[in-house]
């Protein structure tokens, strides 16, 4: 033990170890028996806040309010977990098919001990009480706008209906804050969808706008589905996929200016944006 640090935590840690040992002696599978040993413990929540910053904030943001990559965890209702034990499993094992990695597998950093995972869960629970009020908008009207006058569904899909040029928004209400959704409508270019950096990256998924001019002068404009130094895979505005070799092109340009139009208040009023956000949030809460 290194003097001058964490005497209190050390006691907590020992107590927790004893607890886990007792569990092991009962030979109960952890997933069945797991209860948060720190439930409601404010000092554990504080330790958990720091662990959260180190291990989770990259995607879920400082304060657990969600970032460009991960859901807002201050919402009481979670998509993948209903209780502490499930949250422990999700943090330990990740969520297949999503960017949520299993503990210690992203190839960077040390990963978390069981104690640290429980501290993080305690912290997340402590933040839920302060969660922002949900949207006051009219979800039914938002749905009409999404598939109608708002033209959102020309490029975005919800529940299998809509376009493909932008991200599928079926689950976005459960993974982004109201503020982030409003910002994405008002200032789509301020933050393109954020890709993941290596080593968890397979697709950049950044929806960068690309313009390629082929050897015979044909211009192809769309979003990059993937790209490397020598090839690019583009979906154009008609949802055609073009597989291009960069050295065969007359020109190739990328832009962080989104293809999505900037919705000013004269196009969509604050109330209408609120309704669309309420619609998306109602989907995410399913």
């Amino acid at each position, binding site marked *: 033990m*290194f003097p001058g640090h964490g005497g209190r935590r050390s006691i907590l840690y020992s107590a927790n170890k004893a607890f886990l040992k007792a569990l092991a002696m009962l030979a109960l599978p952890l997933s069945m028996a797991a209860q948060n040993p720190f439930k409601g413990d404010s000092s554990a929540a504080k330790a958990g806040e720091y662990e959260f*910053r180190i291990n989770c904030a990259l995607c879920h943001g*400082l304060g657990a309010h969600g970032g460009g990559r991960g859901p807002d965890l201050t919402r009481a209702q979670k998509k993948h977990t209903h209780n502490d034990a499930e949250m422990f499993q999700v943090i330990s094992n990740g969520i297949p098919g999503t960017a949520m990695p299993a503990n210690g597998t992203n190839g960077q950093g*040390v990963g978390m001990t069981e104690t640290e995972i429980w501290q993080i869960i305690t912290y997340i629970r402590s933040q839920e009480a302060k969660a922002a009020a949900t949207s006051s908008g009219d979800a039914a009207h938002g749905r009409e706008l999404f598939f109608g006058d708002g033209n959102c569904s020309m490029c975005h899909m919800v529940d299998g209906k809509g376009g493909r040029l932008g991200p599928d928004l079926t689950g976005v209400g459960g993974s982004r804050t109201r503020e982030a959704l409003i910002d994405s409508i008002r200032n789509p270019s301020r933050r393109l969808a954020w890709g993941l950096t*290596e080593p968890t990256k397979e697709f950049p998924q950044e929806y960068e706008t690309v313009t390629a001019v082929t050897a015979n002068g044909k211009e192809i404009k769309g979003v990059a589905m993937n790209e490397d130094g020598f090839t690019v895979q583009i979906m154009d505005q008609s949802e055609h996929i073009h597989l291009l070799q960069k050295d065969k092109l007359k020109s190739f340009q990328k832009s962080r200016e989104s293809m999505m139009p900037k919705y000013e208040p004269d196009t969509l009023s604050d109330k209408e944006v609120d309704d669309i956000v309420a619609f998306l949030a109602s989907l995410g809460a399913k």
Partner: protein
Amino acid sequence: MKRPISSSELRFAQRWKSGASVPRRGEKNIAGFSPRQTLGLKAIRIQATSAALKGRLFHGIVKAIAILGFVLSRLDLSSAQVTFERILNSSKEPHNWLTYSGDYSGKRFSALDQINAANAKTLVAKWVYQTGATGKFETTPLVVDGILYATAPDNRAFALDARSGRPIWLYQRQVPSDIRPCCGRVNRGMAILGDKVIFGTLDAHVIALDAKTGAVRWDVEAADYRIGHSFTVAPLAVKNLIIIGVSGGEYGIRGFIDAYDADSGQRKWRFYTVPGPGEPGHDTWGGESWKVGGAPAWNTGTYDPATNQIFWPTGNPAPSNRGAGRVGDNLYSNSLLALNVETGKLNWYLQLTKHDEHDWDATQVPILIDKDGKKLIAQADRNGYFYVIDRTNGKLISATPYGKTTWSDSKDADGRPVANKNASPTLEGHTVCPGALGSTNFMPPTYDPQTGLFYVTSRDQCDIFSTAPQPYEPGHAFYGSAYFPSEEAEPYLGFLKAIDPVTGEIKQKFQHTSPTWSGTLSTAGGLVFSGDAEGNFIAFDASSLKPLWHFQMGGAVYAGPMGYSVDGKEYVAIAAGNAIYAFGLP
């Protein structure tokens, strides 16, 4: 979990040596005078003296010649031994790659020129070897006389036919279930000396394997993995010593560099990179912080035979991103050390980042360059500065930014960049460039004596550093602050840069689609090889850095390339994804 062994590998199953096997200590060197060879010599004498009849005599002579031939061929094996002299004179055998960086100077330059700027566009994949391992694959293979040796994640080591990629032996040591190595279950390679290959394991053992069979020749536990020690570095073989530095800067270990006797595995010296009480530099650590001071030594250093010194770089002080508990410069973290190779005594040091709070390990290969009569060391550091050092005395000649940096706007009397007041992490988070991953990292650079340029993979990324105090607990992560990419700085940019090592000027650069973790290789064919995060292996013109050829390997690159030749045919090999790829002319 081990991968299932395929039927074609079944015949190697007996050679798959479990790490649990008892090390055969002190076993005789196969190319020395083994009992079998003594028997052979005796047989010749008996045959010669007992022959009475001509026919029998003739028969005896034929047999004697056959046996003599056998004996001589056996004795001839001694020439296949990788002696210190061979590594010292590796430029005389450019078909081999005898040490991590290709030679003791760390240049990672292949003197082969069959593959060159004129024909590089015709390169093809000659073979692929799938390791079955998962995770980042950081190894640099060695090649000796047609056999390729390498390590892979999860304590794997293997030998392949360097012409075909077919395995000769495989070794894997069980990884303890309670291990949590930082940054992946990686390994960057091995050393070869005599008839042994030597590598370090994730559970902090140093293991010597028989180069011919993969059998364990000796196995030494260097430190306790349960409190965060591990080995990921490729050791360096010098004289009869195996030099290896420890990993574990994220756990508050006390860093060290060890030297082991190559024959016995006996430890000859240990240099603690954090000085203890009474030692010079101890007073650069506030209070008891030295006990958990970190300063690991996880990348391979270089060796200067003229002065009998090794130059070994060290990593971050612990906790890596919080300086509050460790007031002072924190020697010898983030330093370049010059050690007497035989005694481990410190001759000089140069600390590249003082009192680091951004995880800027100085663990980059320090390349020895002789230029205009000057004996230099060039090191492209993770903190964003390119350092040129007089290696005769450790004096800094220049420090020039080669990537995006915001942390320093002044230099000290020695010319070292000094952190500005705003560089420290804050509770609410504060953006600093470069980010924690650095302007470069462990990926090996190269120096091409033909162009006179230093090539390095670099990254422009800024991070938000936000304090997150953690108490020290043995074996637990000990960072003290969080960091994550700053949105303002997106997208992050990745480059291959060619730097004039005299002036620090960037002469050429190539921008990758995204930052890469690939190392570099320069060759006498006027080429520089490197890989990208999207899985391409690329041959660049060494002067213009124009890509001349590429191949999509299907997995990101985290390793440095190397070159060799067999039967007069040149190959360039690299680890990518979970496999080793070898390329050559059609």
